[in-house]
């Protein structure tokens, strides 16, 4: 791709003629987009098909034998006989219940974790106290411990607290803080000009008031970004809820979905129902993403630790 040499210095990059390389590059880009998106379409196509239809025409690009049966099974709207007749397992899956559980757990984790982390971040960034740097270094060291390592001992602790099979038990370990959230928000608070605070102090506001009335509102953008990401992470978590929940009362969508996949009826996996359930489980995050896509996409970068 030989570029045209410029004789005059222009600020704007000049338009280049589409070269072979550029065409190739676009082809690759389009292929990547297809690989990314086709599975999403395939979920929808399968969810709207009937199981016998899927067996008969596995390669049809459109829904075979268009039906909402899959969604009805996933949401438990069909009777057992009906479900079995259509290739379902007939096991009572209460997706509304799991959806509610997922919403409750994710909301609890997100709201508490970010609020408490913001408080701690403010203390680290703006308050003066003995041992501050040491404690902060300790928090940062917490980043080094893989989550997976704390799962087993945390399970033992949750069991000792009598919170196994309880939504609070699922939320508790990540409800108070994550080292990342504290670090992330501290970075923001440290960059707020001191003058903002000093002006408020002169007006006679206390530091508590400054935090709630001045700094927290100023931090709404990073807080929202962090909140969306925390929500997605807790919504998608599987390993920890799998350890802690044993019955419908505390089962979240990811765990329920894996269970749905495991209960294979005699006629083979109920693909139509399974894909409908998958879509239901994934939809809230897709909607959330629809609202926040631009913000999330542009905020993914390094925390600038160097």
């Amino acid at each position: 791709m030989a570029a045209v040499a410029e004789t005059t210095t222009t600020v704007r990059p000049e338009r280049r003629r589409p070269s072979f390389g550029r065409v190739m590059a676009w082809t690759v880009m389009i292929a990547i987009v297809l690989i990314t998106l086709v599975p999403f379409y395939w979920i929808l196509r399968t969810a709207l098909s009937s199981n016998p239809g899927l067996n008969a025409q596995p390669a049809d690009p459109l829904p075979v034998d268009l039906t909402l049966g899959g969604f009805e099974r996933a949401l438990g709207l069909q009777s057992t006989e009906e479900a079995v007749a259509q290739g379902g397992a007939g096991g009572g899956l209460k997706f509304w219940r799991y959806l509610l559980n997922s919403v409750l757990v994710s909301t609890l984790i997100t709201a508490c974790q970010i609020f408490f982390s913001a408080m701690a971040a403010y203390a680290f960034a703006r308050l003066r106290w003995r041992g501050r740097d040491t404690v902060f270094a300790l928090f940062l060291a917490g980043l080094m411990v893989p989550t997976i390592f704390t799962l087993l001992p945390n399970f033992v602790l949750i069991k000792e607290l009598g919170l196994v099979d309880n939504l609070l038990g699922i939320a508790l370990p990540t409800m108070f803080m994550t080292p990342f959230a504290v670090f992330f928000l501290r970075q923001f608070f440290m960059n707020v000009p001191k003058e903002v605070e000093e002006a408020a102090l002169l007006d006679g506001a206390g530091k508590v008031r400054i935090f709630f009335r001045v700094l927290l509102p100023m931090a709404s953008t990073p807080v929202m970004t962090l909140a969306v990401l925390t929500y997605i992470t807790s919504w998608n978590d599987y390993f920890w809820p799998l350890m802690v929940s044993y019955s419908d009362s505390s089962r979240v969508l990811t765990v329920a979905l894996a269970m749905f996949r495991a209960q294979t009826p005699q006629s083979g996996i109920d693909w139509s129902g399974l894909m409908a359930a998958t879509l239901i489980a994934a939809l809230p995050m897709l909607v959330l993403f629809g609202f926040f896509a631009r913000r999330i996409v542009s905020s993914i970068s390094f925390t600038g630790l160097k």
Partner: protein
Amino acid sequence: MTVASSSPPSRLPLGAAEAVAPVKKAKSRPGGDGALAALFIAPAMLGFLVFLLWPTLRGIYLSFTDFNLLTPAEWVGLGNYVRMVNDPIFWQSLWVTVEYVVLNIGVQTVAALAIAVLLQRLTQSSVLRGIVLAPYLMSNVVAGIVWLWILDTQLGIGNEIIAGLGADRIPFLADETWAIPTIAMINVWRHVGYTALLLFAGLMAIPNDMYEAARVDGASEWRMFWRITMPLLRPVLAVVLIMTVIGSFQVFDTVAVTTDGGPANATNVLQLYIYDSAFGRFQFGYASAMSVALLVVLSAITILQYRLTRAGQTDLG
């Protein structure tokens, strides 16, 4: 300083543009707002001590005990570690995990780099960036199930296409040789966009003037990639690698929903074996010992990678 390893790999690298700034060294005078600070930090401190520090210490302690949850833990010294060293399934799990990580990280890093460069040099459309990120919004469970269906030997569209091309159907997740590479690729599908966006953020820090100047000198895109992009991206790439490798070692969800360790232990990754030892056989002590082993492996890799990639670190200007 670079905080390299993070627990949830999904968490560390996210940063709002606003937050990107060097850590200012604030002068801390003792005293000051002691009481107020204690109040502000109390909830986070509680969480840190109870759900992070304590379980870390306890996990190490439990690895030296015999513990089945019902009766109190009984000190057995190095018993669990001796058993681990002599356990062929442990070594098999470790090997399978390493195989997975090499495939997963190898393909993911190259693909993410390609996507990031395409996004940088071809178009900086935020719609495309959004599309590329979409699979990351799915849980591993969802991604696993969807690909289980697409790659199904009899009915999956993937195999329909293969059969349509006249080739033999491939039992992707039911075959000992195919299973691990397939799971590695499923996780590439879910994570590659996210990794690409991290690299893309690093690429955006490279001044456009450099490319302009190189173009004036008649350099090709290929040459610019090796002479400008790679050297300047190297520090970012190093951190991304450390993080993704650590995340990759913790693979569990995808395996649990697709193969559940089979066929014949071919996909019995370390996390799955740990989970099975703890919750399937109630050997919490042994499971903890294996967790400690994993922690040691991860720490060693982090230090090694950090040392290796730090050498010759470049910076702008």
